[in-house]
């Protein structure tokens, strides 16, 4: 492991330098002797799989975590960062993925929250000054908007701009951004990149966490790769290829494989959706899924994919249309769908898929209680046995079935959600973004699992924004646009290009 970043002779002192940072949580070394330097006016990309230590490093940087060991230097002088106030004083600001804006206050109030200019009457705010100040700050980042607009009226990209304006107004010199383009459209991403260039020119340094290889090379001046809490290497984009970076991140050669054994001919029809319309914004949906098939459901975010999944599962009421499952019509709440053999692996695993504070075992058996204990009498040991066998079968990395599920990594949490439906003996698995926030290794395991399920006679309907995944894994796919099915692609027609073409407006 190289000790320092490649430093040229003319390189100035780092604006901020972290040396030998370690942070331990019970049972896990989140950061292990990590050194990290930020130079003035650079974009420093931070790369790593989930659980590599990016978030921990970010939290140490902004004072939210207190490092167990290590030193901080600001312009070459030793400093301490033991609170968020310390970090703020050093000019460090973080733009988290979840914004910390107050929705019912306006932009100006959000920018100066807690630092409002005082009015003449004690306890009041100088309205004219706060608006003028806000306008000035927004002007410096080139964001043209009325500062008296309330934040709840803003889109994600605009809220992000307000966050950045807030940081700039606090004289931030180091801006830490956590996957800032994750929720942005292409056009919004371009605007953000332009802003980043502008901030750079003003000498602001940016620590940028990203999972998108294209961004890393388009924006980065320097790249630090973390893996398992350790700094693996620091490189310049010009000196590496994307493949080399991936290898650093995963520590081995992984060509993302999509294990899939396509069946010669699919089985009988398991799910038939006819003219399904729901008040959630989907209309006249016609879908068919056969045993042994993985059917993709694609389209842009907001095109109604999740709504179709929820309507089939009974989670949202249906206005008209028919859902025929396994030869019989089905209409009712999710408990009926569950009994009949439909499984939903929801998009948001933490808020909709798991009871985070309960144990792995509790979560694994929750949908199968009636099946496992037909007498109605629950038996902890029986639950434990079922869980232990699922943990082995799915290779869930957990110290025991009694571990709190919220403490597992994203990939393992997702396996618990899937395991819950294996225990229930489901026949149709509806996956809504099954690989979101999961590292590459776990992704490929999950695809192997889906493949095995359908090979054994189950069927899967898979929603994914990762078109590569759909193309490699699905037998065929439906593409949605504005709440309707815009088209159907057979295995041969299934290309990223076709998906995009059908999913785009006015195609």
């Amino acid at each position: 492991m190289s000790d320092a970043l490649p430093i040229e002779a003319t390189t100035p002192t780092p604006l901020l330098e972290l040396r030998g940072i370690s942070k331990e949580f019970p049972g896990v070394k989140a950061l292990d002797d990590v050194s990290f330097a930020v130079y003035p006016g650079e974009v420093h990309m931070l790369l790593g799989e989930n659980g590599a230590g990016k978030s921990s490093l970010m939290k140490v940087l902004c004072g939210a975590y207190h490092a167990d060991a290590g030193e901080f230097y600001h312009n070459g002088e030793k400093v301490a960062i033991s609170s968020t106030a310390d970090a703020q004083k050093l000019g460090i600001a973080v733009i988290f993925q979840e914004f910390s804006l107050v929705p019912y206050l306006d932009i100006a109030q959000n920018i100066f929250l807690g630092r409002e200019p005082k009015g003449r009457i004690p306890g009041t705010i100088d309205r004219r000054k706060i608006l003028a100040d806000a306008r000035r700050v927004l002007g410096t980042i080139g964001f043209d908007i009325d500062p008296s607009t309330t934040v709840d009226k803003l889109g994600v990209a605009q809220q992000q701009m307000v966050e950045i304006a807030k940081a700039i107004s606090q004289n931030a010199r180091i801006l830490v951004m956590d996957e800032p383009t994750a929720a942005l459209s292409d056009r919004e991403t371009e605007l953000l990149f332009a802003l980043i260039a502008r901030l750079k020119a003003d000498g602001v340094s940016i620590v940028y966490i990203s999972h998108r290889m294209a961004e890393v090379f388009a924006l980065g001046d320097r790249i630090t790769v973390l893996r398992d809490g350790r700094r693996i290497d620091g490189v310049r984009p010009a000196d590496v290829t994307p493949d080399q970076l991936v290898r650093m991140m995963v520590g081995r050669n992984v060509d993302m494989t999509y294990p899939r054994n396509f069946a010669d001919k699919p089985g009988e029809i398991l799910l038939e959706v006819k003219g399904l319309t729901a008040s959630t914004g989907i209309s006249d949906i016609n879908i068919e899924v056969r045993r042994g098939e993985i059917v993709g459901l694609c389209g842009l975010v907001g095109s109604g994919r999740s709504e179709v999944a929820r309507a089939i599962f009974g989670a949202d009421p249906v206005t008209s249309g028919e859902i025929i499952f396994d030869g019989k019509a089905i209409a009712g709440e999710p408990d009926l769908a569950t009994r009949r053999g439909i499984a939903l692996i929801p998009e948001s695993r933490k808020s909709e898929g798991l009871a985070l504070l309960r144990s792995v075992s509790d979560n694994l058996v929750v949908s199968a209680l009636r099946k496992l204990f037909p007498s109605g009498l629950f038996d902890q040991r029986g639950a434990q046995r079922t869980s232990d066998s699922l943990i082995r079968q799915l290779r869930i990395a957990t110290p025991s079935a009694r571990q709190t599920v919220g403490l597992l990594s994203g990939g393992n949490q997702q396996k618990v959600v899937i395991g819950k439906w294996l225990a229930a003996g489901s026949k149709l698995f509806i996956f809504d973004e099954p690989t979101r926030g999961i590292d590459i290794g776990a992704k490929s395991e999950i695809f192997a699992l889906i493949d095995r399920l359908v090979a054994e006679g189950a069927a899967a309907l898979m929603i994914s924004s990762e078109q590569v995944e759909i193309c490699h894994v699905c037998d065929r796919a439906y593409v949605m646009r504005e709440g309707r099915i815009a088209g159907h692609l057979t295995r041969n027609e299934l290309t990223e290009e076709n998906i995009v073409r059908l999913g785009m407006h006015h195609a």
Partner: protein
Amino acid sequence: MTDITKDAIAPPRSFLSQDAIQLFYRLLAALLICAVLAVLSDSFLSLGNILNVLRQASLTFFIASGLTLVVLTAGLDLSVGANVALSACIAGTVIHKTGSPALGILTGLACGGIVGLLNGIMVTALRIPSFIATYGMLWVLNGLTYWYMAGETLHGFPAGFRQIGSGYLFGLPIPVYLLLVFLGIGTLFAQRTIWGQEIYAIGANPVAARLSGIPVARRLLLVYAVSGTMAGLASIIFLSRLNSAEADIGESLTLPAIAAVLIGGTSLFGGVGTVFGTFIGALILTLVLNGMNLLSVSANWQPLVTGIIVILAVWLDMKTRRRAQ
């Protein structure tokens, strides 16, 4: 493939579950209070006093046990005390009119259960937050009871009926037997039935519970109906013990029941707690009040002490749980 040891995050939980540890601390606290009271007061350890404590604790426990289930689902039932009053007055009237204690008991239980069911309907079908639904119900029930009783007091019930609240069997008060029975039933229901498991799951994350195929609305109806029925049961014991019923008997019951649930370690956020914990909570609450009586501390201090115990218990819980995670 992923190295399976790579993201093993935390060490396995200790041998005892978190719940067991919390219960152990509570039992210890109850014993400690007993020891202190035994030293400070000669009469504390007398048989009469101990039986009195158990009988008192049982009254709080009946109401609090049903309430525990509601709180496990992250709900609250503020109408339990008012429910006891209405059920007692109606049951008392039925006994007076028909002369049949059995019929009276059934009416009392049914009245309590129906009120609970109505709470459940408000929470599930009308989607009113339980705190508000049952708070409104509290006023409605009070109104009904005051109107129905019109300032009257029901008094004088058959001797056989009065045995329920004040009689003894093999030297133990009959409510204590009932306490043991319902402690057993409640614990079995919560820990050993799939309904109990589903209730914990709903409290831990209602959205995930619904999307895991749990019939959330039906379980909530059940839970509120059980809470109401337990209030109905408490109303019978009260009626029998006091040998009278008035419109205002429920007013001092709800807050102690909530206190017992909280001292017993059930989280108001749902998903965490046990019926047995609530029993110990009721016991601790009763012991402290009993001790203050024995030591001739003015009754005016009792609410203050109750409040401090509740805050202390919840704070200690949060502390130990946070450390455990």
